[in-house]
């Protein structure tokens, strides 16, 4: 059976939902004739026509605002940000209009805002950002960060069907590097459910996105030394799967919180708080964070390599925790 890449999986998910549901349409910059900067929407213009695959002006805020208006009327818009970094230009519409609308007067906003995030491709400060926390801290939104092709497809479908606004971050480093065989039948991955990628007994690594694979690599390496990592892939950050996180910590009693996003105010903090609140008695060692440092994402390879968390960081911290 053929293997499907992470990016192809996203495309399949959108394609299937657009085929199944007339209300679903896509809008964004260069999504039509060009098929999107990364080709996620390639062929959709030809398949679904101009009225459902809409090339817009360079107006992120209006792209989201237009999607909001259409969604209020019962449509299911998918708004593409050419790079997740540019979501900053739509911040107000997302956090003030989309996120608060249902709460304020009961009008749900079923939109999906998606775009490529993350580093590792020497994109520099404006083509490598991980903006998830700006939205995780905004009640009324949902935020997902798939790491596998299976989840990429299952979560985009779940996001499109969700009655509330979902921010869907695609990690561009994974687009063509990750492949797997996908079920032929329709499926979704429920928003808010984490998954244990590797069962282990010694230390829990809680992570998401591209970092999942670093954690798994580290686990392989540590295996040789008899250190047995459990790797939890959150998949969704808002809402997130507290139970799976706490169960894992209660089992291993030691935890590493890992993300590519910068440290201060990153998701690791939220996890640390929940763990220190609700699994305190189960902790046999300090909660350790492995994250990018508090800087913009630098461009030149040696700088970016320094910036991004590495397998060696996980191995080092795991050894320290294990010895604790």
């Amino acid at each position, binding site marked *: 059976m053929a293997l499907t890449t992470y990016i192809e999986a996203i495309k399949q998910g959108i394609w299937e939902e657009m085929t199944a549901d007339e209300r679903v349409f896509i809008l964004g910059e260069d999504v039509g004739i060009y098929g999107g900067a990364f080709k996620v929407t390639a062929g959709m213009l030809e398949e679904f026509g101009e009225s459902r695959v809409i090339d817009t002006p360079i107006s992120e805020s*209006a792209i989201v605002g237009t999607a909001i*208006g259409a969604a*209020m009327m019962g449509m299911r818009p998918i708004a593409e940000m050419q790079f997740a970094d540019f979501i900053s230009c739509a911040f107000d519409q997302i956090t003030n*209009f989309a996120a608060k609308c*249902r709460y*304020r007067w009961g009008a749900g906003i079923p939109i999906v805002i998606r775009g490529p995030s993350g580093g590792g491709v020497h994109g520099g400060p404006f083509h490598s950002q991980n903006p998830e926390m700006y939205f995780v801290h905004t009640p009324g939104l949902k935020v997902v960060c798939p790491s596998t092709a299976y989840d990429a497809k299952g979560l985009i479908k779940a996001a499109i069907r969700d009655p509330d606004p979902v921010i869907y971050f695609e990690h561009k480093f994974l687009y063509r590097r990750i492949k797997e065989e996908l079920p032929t039948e329709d499926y979704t991955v429920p928003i808010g459910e984490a998954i244990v990628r590797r069962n282990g007994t010694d230390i829990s690594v809680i992570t998401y996105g591209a970092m999942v694979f670093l954690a798994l690599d580290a686990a392989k390496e540590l295996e040789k030394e008899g250190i047995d990592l459990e790797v939890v892939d959150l998949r969704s950050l808002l809402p997130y799967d507290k139970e799976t996180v706490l169960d894992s910590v209660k089992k291993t009693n030691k935890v590493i919180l890992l993300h590519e996003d910068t440290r201060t105010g990153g998701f690791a903090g939220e996890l640390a708080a929940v763990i220190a609140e609700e699994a305190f008695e189960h902790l046999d060692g300090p909660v350790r964070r492995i994250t990018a440092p508090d800087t913009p994402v630098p461009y030149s390879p040696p700088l970016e390599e320094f910036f991004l968390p590495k397998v060696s960081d996980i191995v080092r911290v795991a050894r320290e925790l294990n010895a604790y």
Partner: protein
Amino acid sequence: MLYYMKLTRELEDRIERKLYRQGKIVGGVYVGRGQEAIAVGACIDLEEDDVVCVSHRDMGAFLIRGMSLREILAQYMGRATGPTKGKDANMHMGSMKYNLIAFVSMLGDNIPVAAGIGLSFMMREQKQVSICFFGDGATSRGDWHEGMNIAAVLKTPTVYICNNNQYAYSTPLERQMAVENVADRAEAYGMTGEIVDGNDVAAVWEVTTRAVEKARNGGGPSLIECKTFRMTGHSAHDDAGYVPPELFEYWEKRDPIKRLVTTMLENKHLTAKSIDEMDKRVVSEVTEAVAIAEKDPMPAPEDCLRDVYFEE
């Protein structure tokens, strides 16, 4: 139309000059005194399934769309029976039941939203239109520009209506923009722009009706600028000391309600008596509604947690 204008005036006077001072209103109060002709003239002939994006001085739109005085007053008093169930501030009212979109404070955010509403009508080949109100100051916001441009490029059936009351809070038009008319900006989007006397309800009705028909028939969006004046401070706590008194005098003479009454009397469409009855009627309607709304319950505290996300 006279009825709705008078009802708007009476309702807002009651809210601002009576209930607010009695401490019965929650939060600040913004009214559209002197601007009643705009919302009324623009909305009176809309179809029920047309969608209206209101701003903060368009009370007439709510009344015409069918929101009851009791709902409105309950909203202003933070009651559970208001359209936002006490969740959002008084004039931030909206209701899908009446195809009224509640605005967010961030001025201009409604402009692209109105385009999106229009876009959905195009996609479904429905003949509805979206109407979007905003002030002169809102035109300075980036979202106003992005929204106007995307509406024009996508040719959405949307009518943009500016109440140019010459001030944004304390900021006069010339510090807001270096052009004389907001309508001058329509050309920048390839839109038709029209200027109308915003204190002449018939004129507003005529111009907006034309724009609505154009939009309904695939002619795309328009921008209508209604020249008017804010006959109050920005909000109830602002004495508008920065506004030259002459301006108030000048515009007081052009009060939209007085003007309509005069012409209707002249054309014998109305008698002094019937006006009197109408005045009595609006006063008693508002009085009754206040009495009911005052008895309406406050929301239950724990409802704070409800409706952040969809609930089965």
